[in-house]
């Protein structure tokens, strides 16, 4: 078993763009997994039973040794040496030690395989932390303005040291700043950048500052030629705010989408549907390699949905017996058919795997059930957006997934989950498996305890279903179960004793296989066709164009790449992003769209792209995100209050200016003209005009107009300024298109540092003859 905390730490390096790091991290995870198996192999005390690989971790050393042959293994000896003797069983009386008694108190499965339960708990807590704490943006606080001292006039420059001398406009008794403070020097001219400097000396008569970098020619000119006063700022003036982006980055010790990128179905189906490289395929590859070493270990140990289902089964499932089903029915292979159907749909370019893949299912469940609760309790219920039909469908689906546990514990994981099916298929290449030795006393304890229905009536293993959780090993009274290399044949129990009644493939099996496969093909193709026909219908210019998050790939690709996990909704401050219902048919269900009537996109936030597991929203840096257009604000000139001549209003302009875009300016409308044709002062209104080259479609203006003029004052039925997406109104590009766009938009700084030029006497010699004054006509 791989230590999850370590593995996850390494996954922190997995980030798009840093290829060698990603590959190194992937290699490190695989290597650590191999190392762990090596340690566990050494760890076993059952020297009686030889094996090349050994994964037994059900702490047999805390149990009484039934066949004490030979010395205990190295780690066991160490454990006995380092830990108090009371932890272990008493070798004289055979009484249980404290460790085992504690495990017994916590329940039979903890007693049987404590390590697995610990790993499960850690992963579940990690998942919840990533979702509810890392993706909770509301503890971000804007940077305060800081201290500002104005009215400094520039006096002189010390050419030897480069220090600048300033004098105050009026002598001041005390100063806001002290020696060694870092300040930003700014003029009244807001267009020119401020100059970072350190205070060398300051008193009531003046201040001496040392610029952080050598002066640029522009700064030199500004200092020497300017006549205005300078201001000292503690915080860089005019700096684009970044508190939301910083907040997420500071909390994201692990990628917020760690579990989503670990779910192999997410990246595989996305890659197939969009016919493109999805960077999270790397993590899917890693987890599949790890699962060759520990077959289906993801399901038994890592999957937070599995853990949640375990909790549901433990609290509710075991109390409600009336829905229990007996035996094995047609359902036992649903997962393969679901997997086939989603992959076939993906091959047709329709991504529906997110509806049923394990991690998207639990992420959406947490989003639609947990997030409103979190938001409502911590921020106020009025800040929870209303549910639409799409959300209700998702909640029902999630409850259904849990509810399957009433049929049989972990019904979803065993029979339905298509992500699990990927691992089941991966098990064909397993190098380790569960084996039963001939010492088996056929007590049936292992069959009863197995959570995955992976033990046949003859106590051997259904290898595609076994997750190596090792609970069976822990309950086995005869220590007959071992987890060893696949080709180990040492002292094995006879197969088919007692008879299992199972055949490789019987008539019914064949019929069900044929029917299931046919259903999968038909279903996959059918879903693909249906979503296309009743889908987004992108060829029709009149089809609805939702405003997508900033950095979304082109709409066609977006629908193919968005896995509908809901992670972006969680990370989005103020719920600007909300899930679509059926506006785009099934094709757009649960995809993120901007609801600008509810809230506008924060200028300091780029979270949605950072947490997107598939790259449907590109992880744009903030300085790019603030320039990428999501849409364009369009003023309705028939309803907008000033245009309609109803009253003065400048909500949208103020909002846009405050956000720093300055994309809405005024025009005066309805001016009355006197007889001479001159405008009459005080008549008419100032009305908003959107500047298309500056508007990024953040929607803050719409939020304000809708909130004040429509909801609060009831002057309008809906906002008079609306963000609209569509051709020419938004910047949508694929990863490669983005690189190209960025290069054009943000050219690398080509400015060369000013090279000290030697004064060239010949060429520069001023013409001193012919005129008395070399400066000419002053």
């Amino acid at each position, binding site marked *: 078993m791989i230590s999850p905390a370590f593995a996850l730490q390494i996954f922190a390096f997995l980030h798009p763009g840093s290829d060698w790091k990603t590959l190194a991290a992937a290699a490190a995870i695989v290597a650590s997994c191999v190392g762990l198996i090596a340690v566990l192999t050494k760890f076993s005390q059952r020297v009686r039973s030889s094996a090349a690989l050994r994964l037994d971790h059900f702490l047999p050393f805390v149990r009484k040794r039934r066949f004490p042959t030979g010395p205990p293994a190295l780690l066991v000896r160490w454990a006995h040496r380092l830990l108090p003797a009371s932890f272990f069983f008493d070798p004289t009386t055979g009484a249980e030690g404290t460790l085992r008694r504690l495990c017994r108190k916590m329940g039979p499965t903890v007693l049987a395989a404590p390590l697995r339960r610990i790993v499960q708990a850690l992963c579940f807590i990690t998942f919840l932390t990533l979702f509810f704490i890392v993706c909770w943006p509301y503890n971000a606080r804007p940077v305060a303005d800081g201290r500002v001292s104005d009215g400094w*006039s*520039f*006096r*002189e*420059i010390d*050419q*030897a*040291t*480069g*220090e600048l001398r300033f004098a105050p406009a009026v002598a001041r008794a005390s100063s806001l700043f002290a020696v060694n403070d870092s300040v930003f020097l700014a003029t009244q*001219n807001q267009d020119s950048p401020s100059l970072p400097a350190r205070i060398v000396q300051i008193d009531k008569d003046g201040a001496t500052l040392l*610029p952080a970098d*050598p*002066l640029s*020619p522009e700064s*030199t*000119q500004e*200092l*020497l*030629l*300017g*006549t205005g006063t300078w201001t000292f700022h503690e915080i860089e003036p005019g700096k684009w705010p970044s508190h939301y982006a910083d907040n997420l980055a500071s909390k994201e010790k692990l990628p917020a989408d760690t579990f989503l990128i670990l779910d192999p179905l997410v990246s595989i189906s996305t890659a197939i549907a969009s016919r493109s490289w999805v960077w999270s395929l790397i993590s899917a590859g890693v987890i599949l390699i790890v699962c060759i070493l520990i077959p289906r270990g993801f399901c038994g140990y890592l999957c937070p949905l599995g853990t949640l289902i375990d909790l549901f089964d433990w609290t509710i499932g075991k109390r409600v017996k009336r829905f229990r089903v007996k035996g094995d029915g047609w359902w036992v292979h649903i997962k393969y058919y679901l997997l086939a159907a989603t992959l076939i749909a993906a091959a047709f370019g329709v991504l529906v795997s997110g509806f049923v893949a394990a991690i998207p299912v639990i992420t959406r469940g947490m989003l639609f059930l947990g997030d409103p609760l979190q938001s409502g309790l911590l921020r106020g219920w009025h800040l929870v957006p209303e549910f639409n039909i799409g959300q209700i469908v998702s909640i029902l689906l999630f409850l259904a997934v849990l509810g399957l546990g009433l049929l049989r514990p972990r019904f979803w994981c065993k029979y339905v989950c298509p992500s699990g099916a990927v691992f089941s298929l991966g098990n064909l290449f397993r190098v380790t498996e569960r084996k039963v030795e001939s010492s088996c006393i056929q007590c049936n304890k292992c069959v009863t305890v197995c959570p995955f229905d992976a033990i046949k009536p003859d106590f051997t293993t259904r290898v595609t279903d076994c997750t190596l959780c090792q609970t069976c090993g822990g309950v086995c009274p005869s220590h007959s179960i071992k987890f060893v290399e696949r080709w180990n044949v040492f002292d094995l129990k006879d197969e088919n004793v007692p008879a299992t009644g199972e055949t490789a493939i019987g008539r019914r099996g064949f019929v069900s296989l044929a029917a299931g496969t046919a259903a999968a093909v038909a279903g996959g193709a059918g879903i693909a066709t249906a979503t296309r026909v009743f889908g987004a219908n992108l060829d029709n210019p009149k089809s609805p164009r939702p405003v997508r998050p900033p950095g979304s790939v082109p709409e066609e690709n977006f629908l193919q790449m968005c896995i509908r996990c809901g992670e972006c909704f969680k990370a989005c401050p103020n719920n600007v992003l909300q899930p679509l219902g059926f506006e785009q048919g099934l094709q757009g269900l649960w995809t993120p769209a901007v609801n600008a009537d509810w809230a506008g996109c924060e200028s300091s936030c780029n979270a949605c792209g950072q947490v997107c597991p598939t790259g449907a929203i590109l992880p744009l840096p903030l300085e790019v995100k603030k320039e990428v257009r999501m849409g364009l604000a369009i003023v309705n000139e028939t309803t907008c209050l000033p245009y309609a001549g109803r009253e*003065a*209003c*400048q909500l949208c302009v103020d909002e846009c200016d405050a956000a720093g875009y*300055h994309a809405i*300016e*005024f*025009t*005066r*409308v309805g*001016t009355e*003209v006197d007889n*001479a*044709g*001159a*405008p009459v002062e005080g008549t008419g209104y*100032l009305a908003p005009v959107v500047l298309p080259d500056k508007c990024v479609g953040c929607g803050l203006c719409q939020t304000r107009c809708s909130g004040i003029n429509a909801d609060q004052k009831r002057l309008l039925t809906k906002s008079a300024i609306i963000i609209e997406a569509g051709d020419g109104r938004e910047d949508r590009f694929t990863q490669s298109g983005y690189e190209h766009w960025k290069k054009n938009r943000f050219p690398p700084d080509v400015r060369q540092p*000013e090279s*000290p*030029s030697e*004064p*060239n*006497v010949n060429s*520069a*010699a*001023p013409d*001193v*003859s012919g005129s008395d*004054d*070399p*400066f*000419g*006509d*002053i």
Partner: protein
Amino acid sequence: MLKLTRLFAIIAFALSAWFAGADEIEFLNGSKLDGSVIAIHKAEREVEFEAVIGGKSQAIRYPYPKIHRVVWSGKEYIVTPKPAPIATTTAQQPTSRSQTEVEKLIAEVGSTPPDWLAQTPLEFPKSLDLKWPKPPPKGWDNQKNVGQYIWDKINPNSARWKSGVKLMEHLLEVNTADSELRERIMASMGSMYFRFFQDYARAAYWWEQSEGIGDIQDAIGLAECFFRLGNKQMARAKLKSAPLSLAKVKLLGDMGETREALKIIESARMSQPHELYLTAGDICRMDGKFKDAISWYEKVLIAPNARNKEYEKRYHNRAQNSIDSIKRFELLDIGKLKDGTYSGSAMGYEGPVNIAATVVSGRVEKVEITGHKEKQYYSALADVPAQIIRKQDLSKVEATSRATITAVAVINATAEALTGTPDE
């Protein structure tokens, strides 16, 4: 002989360049650099000067108008004489200047373009008729008629103010023949420097150039320029001939000529006197005559027929706010206020002006405008809070030029806030 002189000069220059740092350049703002003159670009009127600053060598071309003097090869040349110090901010009491000084200031500073003008891009709709006919053709078209373009697009957008001046400069360049038009452009230029930038020297220069072609507002504006530049006599002389107008009375009030202003208001016969009475109240209030102010404001409340109900409501609100805040002033002692943030609201020109004032240990540390509907005259929104913080006394705050209503609203709102209880 001539050849010999030239050779000598070149050798002298070479030597001076050799001993880098032998030359000196002094700028108009008083700062100096030691280094060497690399070239003098007579045509561009620029001096290329190299200096080592903090170990880094920089060769930069400086324009003549920014250079006070250059010491080159041991000889001193005065390039641009230093002007008298200029006080341009509105909030401070204007320094007093003699008529000659003011005229010199207008001629020397007013005639030069401001620093930013060269970098300001020229932008205007292609459809604009640069001939600027007067009166404009029938039908309002802000993409064609210059005056309407200024009214609709430039006046309301502070981001376009600089390009507005640039456009006027361009109009002067393209219209060389029509002297009447040129004067109108100059009047407009003066008005822009005055309204947008409170740049009184340049405003006065262009208004004077326009030969008085502008309207009453322009004439009173010029008077105000004289006053702000430091000469009340010139302002008074200019005002004497101006007919009665609100602007005239307000300026007289600003100048401290309370008696004369009130005399004019009393003798005025107007059918809709609300604004005049409000102005009288404001003037008395600024002069510290609170009783008189209250009686003027009360007249507003009973004055007949405002333009319409909406206007009447605005006038009444403003008058009532002022009465309330004057009464509050007498109770208010900032030094005894509890720490905290206080918020208040008062009627401005277009709607309520909301403020939040922060008091820390008996001082108003911050006055923030939290909401307003004012369309123009934003300067009051920055200026008045700065004054309140500096003076720590609401009754001593002066109204910002041409933004009296907004300024008074900010003062009233602050008074309301500080006489209330701090916010939670």
